[in-house]
């Protein structure tokens, strides 16, 4: 069995479903036979009164309890992007609650209630969609709950609802009397929720958009109290580690566990389709036992190529036309009539997500129930995987979503690899106690699921009048979607994630063609913060600057000229340029560079300022960022995501790469894989464009422009454009 084809397919997300649900979400959620996200109706009234006192439920998104707490049920994973704060703020706004009374909890895995409205019947987090897909849903829930409180107060006071207002967590009558939410909780639970709750006009917002809504998880995370998967403690819990094969796709031939079993505290050594599991009393003991395992692997199906082989093959593939994903005008004719042409090729390495919390999952399979505790990013797929492993129905599989110590896409795994490790070990052991499976950093770094390698070629034509008349981009990379439950999202000849950001190039160019090849490689890959945009933004924006340079055009002016039909791109570009002092003179050893890119329906422009030394070493001093993500729900979280997205993108461009030698990953830990550290972090300034558009995501869009902005700044000093990543800490001077 090829391990990396071990993919559960509980649900296919087809393009049709995708459109159906998204359009419903856009038109308001309480229509088309989908129930209001507030499911109280008369049910609480039928329950015993004491039960209603215990917990007056406000549907599956909001709970208001007699202790005056408002708890928002968060259907998305918080992996640092701040959705616990953002989603809670949306409810608090429509409810007119006070921020101090707001609480939150992660939702259980239940796609019938908590699906991502952009994804069809799947509960999950990704594509910077949490705020965007929840926006109307949670506003409606908040507004409905507010209406219930008003109805309850009106009945209690025997007054007209029109004379009641709500603000800062109090329900007030014009006479001056008032109730807290807690005081009305039980009464409100007996009211019938409105079918079409009245939403605020955004001009009436009092919380959303205020500069700094305090993060709801700051305190526990600053005091060592936040609970991640690694911190879960359960009665009788055992620890487990897994030994993966040294090459992707290998399976176990035989295991000699004699020495391992002699170590005190080791309970079991088990064989699974993904490697050898060791179960022990402690992680330390399990690790010692793993070190003395002797395993003979069957490598008949493994990937044995090296990075250098892959580059050669990618470059060969790039000589031929691939699947055409965009073809405007007549590119060939434009090239035939060109006055001159410009060509460039780019190489992007594999990248690891390297979340600070090495991946882990605690699992308990007991009787006809299976329960996991993990930072689950696509709960529905994880449930599906577990259902397949255990043979249990989805409803018997409970997912306890934990805070995730980072993800950057790594936890949204179509085949749930790290959840699988835990489940396969537990199943093979036959034990019914909780088993906490923990990867070491080396397992994480060598566990695959990298941002794919990508090779890009570009050719531009300049016509006799000096206009950019044609643009041709070709990309070679692996497909993220093919062979996964998301394959339905491939509509054209090639996986659209390979060229995303490239085939959506906003510049007005009459003749524009983008084609791509899906390379077949046995190195498992995965989306990595901003997915295809990571390499497409870099390649297109650096190439664009090369064209501007050859035409002796100012990079900002030239962009603006070709962005006439794209006001939101132009808006962020102008704002970033203005705030960065674009065009103002700099000392001789400094320069600026710019990049603008749209991803996940948010628009970001960045201006980088660099200092370059005489030996070619350099420092990124500052990045000025402008973002347009529609209505800014929690501006300080948006700023934080831009800052973090820039640091993440920049770290990768400067120092990160995963290389393969004879099928083996060469890097293993933070002494040979180099993310951004404090000393390289530039100063960052973030400006948010005021907007009345519906909010869009911010987790990913800050990442793509950072690298090209820096590369374009360095170009003022470098001999050649920067086309091979990572850059390292030095450039070849002109």
């Amino acid at each position: 069995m090829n391990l990396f084809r071990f993919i559960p397919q509980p649900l296919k997300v087809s393009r049709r479903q995708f459109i159906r649900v998204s359009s419903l979400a856009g038109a308001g959620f309480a229509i088309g036979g989908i129930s209001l996200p507030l499911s109280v109706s008369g049910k609480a009234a039928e329950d015993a009164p004491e039960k209603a006192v215990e917990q007056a439920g406000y549907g599956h998104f909001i709970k208001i309890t007699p202790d005056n707490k408002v708890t928002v049920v968060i259907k998305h994973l918080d992996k640092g992007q701040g959705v616990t704060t953002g989603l809670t703020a949306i409810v608090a706004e429509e409810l007119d609650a006070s921020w101090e009374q707001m609480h939150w909890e992660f939702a259980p895995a239940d796609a019938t209630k908590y699906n991502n409205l952009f994804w069809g019947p799947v509960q999950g987090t990704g594509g910077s969609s949490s705020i965007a897909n929840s926006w109307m849903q949670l506003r409606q829930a908040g507004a409905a709950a507010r209406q219930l409180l008003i109805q309850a107060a009106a009945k209690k006071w025997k007054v007209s609802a029109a004379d009641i207002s709500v603000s800062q967590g109090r329900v007030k009558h014009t006479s001056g009397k008032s109730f807290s939410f807690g005081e009305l909780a039980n009464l409100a639970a007996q009211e019938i929720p409105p079918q079409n709750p009245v939403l605020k006009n955004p001009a009436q917002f009092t919380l959303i958009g205020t500069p700094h809504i305090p993060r709801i998880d700051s305190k526990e995370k600053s005091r060592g109290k936040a609970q991640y998967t690694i911190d879960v403690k359960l009665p009788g819990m055992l620890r487990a580690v897994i030994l993966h094969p040294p090459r992707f796709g290998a399976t176990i031939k035989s295991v000699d566990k004699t020495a391992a079993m002699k170590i005190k505290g080791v309970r079991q050594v088990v064989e699974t389709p993904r490697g050898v599991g060791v179960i022990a009393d402690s992680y330390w003991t399990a690790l010692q036992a793993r070190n003395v395992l002797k395993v003979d692997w069957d490598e008949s199906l493994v990937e044995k190529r090296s990075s250098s082989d892959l580059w050669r093959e990618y470059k060969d593939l790039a000589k031929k036309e691939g699947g055409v994903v965009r073809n405007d005008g007549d590119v060939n004719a434009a090239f035939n009539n060109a006055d001159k042409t410009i060509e460039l090729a780019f190489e992007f390495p594999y990248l690891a997500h390297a979340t600070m919390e090495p991946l882990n999952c605690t699992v308990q399979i007991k009787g006809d129930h299976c329960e996991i505790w993990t930072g689950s990013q696509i709960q529905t797929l994880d449930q599906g995987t577990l259902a397949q492993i255990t043979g249990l129905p989805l409803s018997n599989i409970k997912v306890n979503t934990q805070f995730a110590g980072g993800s950057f896409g790594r936890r949204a795994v179509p085949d749930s690899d790290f959840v699988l490790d835990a489940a396969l070990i537990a199943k093979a052991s036959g034990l019914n106690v909780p088993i906490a499976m923990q990867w070491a950093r080396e397992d994480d770094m060598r566990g695959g699921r990298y941002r794919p390698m990508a090779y890009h070629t570009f050719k531009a034509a300049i016509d006799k009048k000096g206009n950019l008349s044609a643009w041709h981009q070709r990309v070679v990379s692996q497909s993220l979607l093919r062979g996964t439950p998301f394959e339905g999202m491939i509509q054209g000849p090639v996986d659209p994630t390979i060229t995303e950001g490239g085939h959506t190039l906003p510049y007005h160019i009459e003749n524009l063609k983008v084609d791509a090849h899906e390379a077949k490689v046995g190195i498992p890959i995965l989306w990595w913060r901003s997915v295809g945009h990571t390499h497409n933004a870099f390649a297109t924006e650096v190439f664009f600057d090369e064209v501007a340079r050859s035409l002796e055009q100012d990079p900002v002016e030239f962009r603006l000229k070709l962005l006439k039909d794209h006001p939101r791109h132009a808006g962020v570009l102008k704002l970033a340029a203005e705030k960065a002092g674009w065009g103002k003179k700099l000392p001789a050893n400094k320069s600026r560079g710019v990049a603008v890119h749209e991803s996940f329906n948010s628009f970001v422009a960045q201006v980088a300022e660099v200092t370059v030394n005489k030996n070619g070493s350099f420092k990124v001093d500052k990045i000025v960022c402008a973002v347009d993500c529609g209505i800014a729900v929690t501006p300080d979280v948006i700023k934080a995501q831009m800052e973090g997205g820039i640091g993440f993108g920049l770290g990768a461009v400067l120092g990160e790469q995963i290389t393969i030698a004879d099928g083996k990953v060469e890097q293993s830990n933070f002494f040979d894989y180099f993310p951004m550290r404090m000393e390289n972090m530039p100063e960052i300034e973030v400006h948010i464009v005021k907007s009345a558009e519906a909010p869009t995501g911010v987790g990913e869009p800050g990442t793509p422009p950072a690298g090209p902005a820096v590369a374009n700044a360095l170009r003022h000093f470098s001999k050649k454009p920067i086309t091979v990543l990572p850059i390292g800490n030095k450039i070849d001077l002109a």
Partner: protein
Amino acid sequence: MTKFTLNGKTVTYKGDANKTLLWFVREDEGLTGSKFGCGVAMCGACTMHLNGNPVRACSTPMSAVNGATVTTIEGISSKVANAVQSAWETLDVVQCGYCQSGQIMSAVALLKNNPSPSDADIDSAMNGNLCRCATYHRIRAAIHNAASQLAKEA
């Protein structure tokens, strides 16, 4: 046998002397604020104070802590620690938060030795603490914020 003071309490350990302080504290003592990130002292998520100095607990063997005083994120309560933690909260430094216990332990140690660090001092004291969310920008600001808070109180 190893005997030492952990957050003001005497604790003892018998067993593999190579076992590291991090796993003893997390699994045997149940204090999970200090995190596992790399196991090789390259990320700082496990940073604790050993006799007042920041150490990487993932690479500190139990044999090295006999007689020592160890403080974890759960046990810090000094003026400096309070200033650092409230600066972290005021500026909303955290994102995923996983590395932040270690960041805070390094920052507290820095400010104890150097009440008004420059950016270069911060770079050198904090460079061993990785943050994949890249909250460095705010960590720097929070350290300056805590330093000026402490200067006001002094």
